[in-house]
């Protein structure tokens, strides 16, 4: 890199940057690359990709704006940031769609080349916000990204139209300079991704270097910034998204159980990346099956489970609706089955690319009859790895379908992940039936498929292939022990209780819910799933104001941990923030008769720490 005027480098503890452009502008990629180089620098980070459901909405319109927000810090952080400190806007629509969440005093870096009359009009601007005074609260940098990119690409023999596509790398280069990111990882990545003799690689490299160079030499910026490494626990780290962690967790779980993994799935946003990731893992012996529909996805997984494999299906809300009947069958068959629901905004098609936690009651109760199913809820992207393993452990041990409730925010969000020592994770024992478990009156050894383990109440798992264990199971009510069809009223009631008690009994092996307590705290904030980051950040802020508050977070929503009732009873006030209209709060109210306050948000975006903080403070002050 050429060195320009030496500028000061200011140190920042943290910064939130939001890259925004047209869907076709490559903003997700830009954000992702910035994240990776920050991870390699040792920052703590959290990301929030925010993109439309349409693959390519009309260029330049508000509907087509795609954004990627990343929060980097030299200390432990939990959320992608409430509000951006810097907005990079590649066109007027990106500016207009995002300016509402950018606080006064923030920095705007705009691609001035895109602010022509036509683009302004498309974005719905009647004038030019850069020339009227509407942006006076911000520091605005106008950078001719498109033209500078085209200029440097001209020499590489790249046509102007193609060169224009590299302007996101110009932006990435500029921001990399502004925040003193290393450039080598990105340069290496460009070569690896596009191939060294590909003109696209050449164009991207030139654009990236030009952006970096521009920051350095143009007398626009008075200084640049550094965000130093965060103090992480020693260990080896990688950066991971929720969907990837979930896929890898399933691989790890299959290995821990010594089972082969079968995934039956139908493509659906935002769950498809799990199918994609596992489809690449043929070397692990994974069988992935892109089914004809959601029902066949779960059906095939159940068939594989009947055959002794680890059967998994992945989906989102609309798919969970369709799978309900088969999950009910699995409850009756008492076979292990993993159903991953990466929740999105609903009802119906809803908001496919946005996050919501509104499938909780569906997972709890969305089947006819008394059909309880354990529910596991990861709290952060990296936690999806562990959640997948624990879900498989419960499914296999208790011969039951288990629903994993991830969501779009966890699925696509990334964070640093300290690689686990796999040898320390307890193995999972499928304990297949291998011999008859009963002797008939006439002395013949026989197999009763519904004899229960006294401890877990689980029935034997007896895949076909073992002589002497032939048996038939099905959706009709089973007779206790024999599993034969039974319409006997007393038997039905007994079986309903067996199934309910089996799932309720899982609580005995669940870890207690941990409470981050402070002496004098009268308010407990209880959450589940992906609100963990925002709640924890909100709690920190409240404590930063000198107020007392306690926090607990559920990784297992059904059954509840054994100590939850006692924990709730300790606090006069309980706040339950959820990205729904109050589903966990209904459950704890019903179960523990606790007067929980529900804090709700259903905008397709996660809570901001400030919203949680505000609610806690009000509850402490008695004004909520």
């Amino acid at each position, binding site marked *: 890199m050429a060195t320009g005027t030496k500028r000061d480098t200011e140190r920042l503890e943290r910064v939130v940057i939001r890259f925004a452009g047209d869907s076709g502008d490559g903003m997700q990629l830009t954000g992702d690359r910035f994240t990776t180089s920050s*991870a*390699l620098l*040792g920052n703590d980070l959290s990301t929030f990709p925010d993109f439309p459901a349409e693959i390519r909405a009309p260029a330049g319109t508000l509907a087509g704006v795609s954004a990627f927000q990343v929060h980097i810090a030299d200390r432990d952080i939990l959320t992608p940031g409430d509000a951006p400190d810097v907005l990079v806007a590649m066109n007027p629509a990106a500016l207009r769609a995002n300016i509402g969440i950018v606080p006064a005093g923030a920095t705007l870096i705009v691609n001035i080349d895109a602010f022509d009359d036509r683009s302004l009009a498309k974005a719905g601007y009647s004038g030019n916000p850069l020339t009227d005074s509407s942006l006076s609260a911000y520091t605005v940098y106008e950078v001719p990204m498109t033209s500078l990119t085209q200029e440097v690409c001209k020499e590489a023999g790249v046509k102007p139209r193609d060169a224009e596509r590299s302007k996101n790398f110009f932006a990435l280069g500029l921001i990399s300079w502004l925040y003193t990111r290393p450039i080598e*990882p990105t340069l290496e990545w460009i070569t690896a991704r596009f191939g060294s003799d590909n003109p696209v690689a050449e164009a991207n490299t030139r654009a990236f270097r030009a952006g970096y160079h521009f920051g350095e030499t143009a007398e626009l910026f008075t200084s640049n910034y550094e965000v130093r490494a965060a103090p*992480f*626990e*020693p*260990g*080896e*780290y*990688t*950066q*991971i998204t929720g969907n990837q962690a979930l896929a*890898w967790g399933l*691989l*790890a779980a299959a290995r821990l159980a010594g089972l082969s993994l*079968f995934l*039956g799935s139908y493509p659906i946003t935002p769950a498809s990346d799990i199918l994609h990731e596992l489809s690449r*893992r*043929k*070397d*692990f*012996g*994974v*069988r992935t*099956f892109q*089914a*004809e*529909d959601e*029902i*066949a996805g779960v*059906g*095939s*997984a159940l*068939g*594989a*489970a*009947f*055959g*002794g*494999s680890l059967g998994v299906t992945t989906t989102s809300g609309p798919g969970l609706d369709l799978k309900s*009947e*088969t999950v009910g*069958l699995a409850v009756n*068959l008492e076979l292990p089955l993993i159903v991953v629901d990466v929740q999105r905004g609903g009802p119906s098609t809803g908001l496919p690319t946005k996050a919501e936690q509104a499938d909780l009651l569906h997972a709890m109760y969305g089947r006819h009859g008394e059909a309880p199913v354990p529910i596991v809820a990861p709290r952060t992207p990296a936690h999806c790895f562990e959640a997948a393993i624990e879900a498989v452990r419960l499914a296999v041990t208790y011969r039951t379908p288990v629903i994993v409730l991830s969501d779009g925010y966890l699925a696509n969000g990334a964070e640093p992940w300290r*690689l686990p020592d*796999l040898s320390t994770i307890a193995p999972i024992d499928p304990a297949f039936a291998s011999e008859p478990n009963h002797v008939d009156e006439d002395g013949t050894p026989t197999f009763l498929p519904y004899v229960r383990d006294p401890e877990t109440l689980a029935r034997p798992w007896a895949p*076909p*292939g*073992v*002589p002497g*264990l*032939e*048996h*038939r*199971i*099905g*959706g009709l009510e089973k007779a206790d022990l024999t599993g*034969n*069809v039974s319409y006997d009223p007393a038997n039905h009631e007994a079986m309903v209780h067996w199934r309910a008690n089996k799932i309720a009994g899982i609580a005995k092996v669940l870890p207690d819910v941990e409470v981050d307590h402070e002496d004098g705290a009268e308010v407990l904030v209880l959450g589940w799933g992906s609100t963990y980051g925002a709640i924890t950040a909100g709690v920190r802020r409240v404590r930063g104001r000198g107020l007392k508050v306690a926090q607990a977070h559920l990784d297992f929503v059904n059954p509840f941990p054994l100590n939850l009732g006692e924990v709730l009873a300790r606090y006069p006030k309980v706040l339950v923030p959820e990205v729904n209209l109050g589903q966990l709060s209904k459950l704890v109210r019903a179960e523990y008769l606790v007067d929980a306050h529900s804090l709700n948000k259903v905008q397709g975006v996660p809570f901001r720490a400030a919203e949680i903080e505000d609610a806690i403070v009000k509850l402490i002050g008695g004004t909520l």
Partner: protein
Amino acid sequence: MTAIPVTTRKDWTSDQEVRWCPGCGDYSILAAVQMLLPDLGVRRESTVFLSGIGCAARFPYYMNTYGMHSIHGRAPAIATGLATTRPDLDVWIVTGDGDALSIGGNHLIHALRRNVNMTILMFNNQIYGLTKGQYSPTSEISKVTKSTPFGSIDTPFNPISLAIGAEATFVARTHDMDRGHMQETFRRAHDHKGAAFVEVYQNCNVFNDGAFEKITSRDARASMLIPLVHGEPIRFGADLERGVVQRSDGHLEMVEVAEVGEGALVVHDEVREDPGLAFALSRLASGPHEPTPIGVFRAVEHPEYGEEMSRQIVRAQERAGAGDLEALLRSGSTWTIE
């Protein structure tokens, strides 16, 4: 592997009381299967019967094998997961016209096109039995039932045409009045690699009695059933006096052999890759009231889905070695904090 034990029908019969209506065609199909299995050279513990919902779907309960009575229409989906993960098993599906063609139509056609290793026996009685007599997707138009008091208005499916259209590699038809024919057809279906589809005309004596009588009764068979025999001219009748010819526009027609000469008859070719002839044969009769072909319409060798799935795994492992989880977790950018 120990030798396959010698078995009899009794060994394949479960201790559960059979609960179909007395006189139901299902009994003779069950008997045909139970009596055939000892001859197939298969093991009980490696045999699985799967079903959905309907009268036919009770079948697995009566077989002393592994079995699952699942939910309406879904057996082919469940079987796909089982058959692809357990290529060592013999997977049978017993289904009905409502189960397979109505609620489960999507699963059926996709299992067929993928050619997943399973033997599908579809009992076609052209009615809903278990729900007590509504018309089915194979009921003839104008059928008066409880749900169609003024007659049904939907065009029925032709199951054989549907299966051929769905790229099925084995398609056959048999009927519940002829054990020998059923057993020969089931044996062929079982031995076929991939998905085999067999339509079994089955009499529901309670809700649709006599639906196939015109063609399957002992007296009618000779003149009303057209046996398909691979490599043989297609002919039927007590003295084989009738036959099938193909017109220049491709459509098939029944003729008097004496009028056209034996040489003019269509020679059945079940292994022909082009499904045109099999399809035309499936359209020869518009319903079980005129001469109807039975036997194997189509039997072609295509790659089997589960085998292909396994092959990709073997190739990937040959190329990259067996998956290494530790290495996978480190496959992205990693950094170390001391």
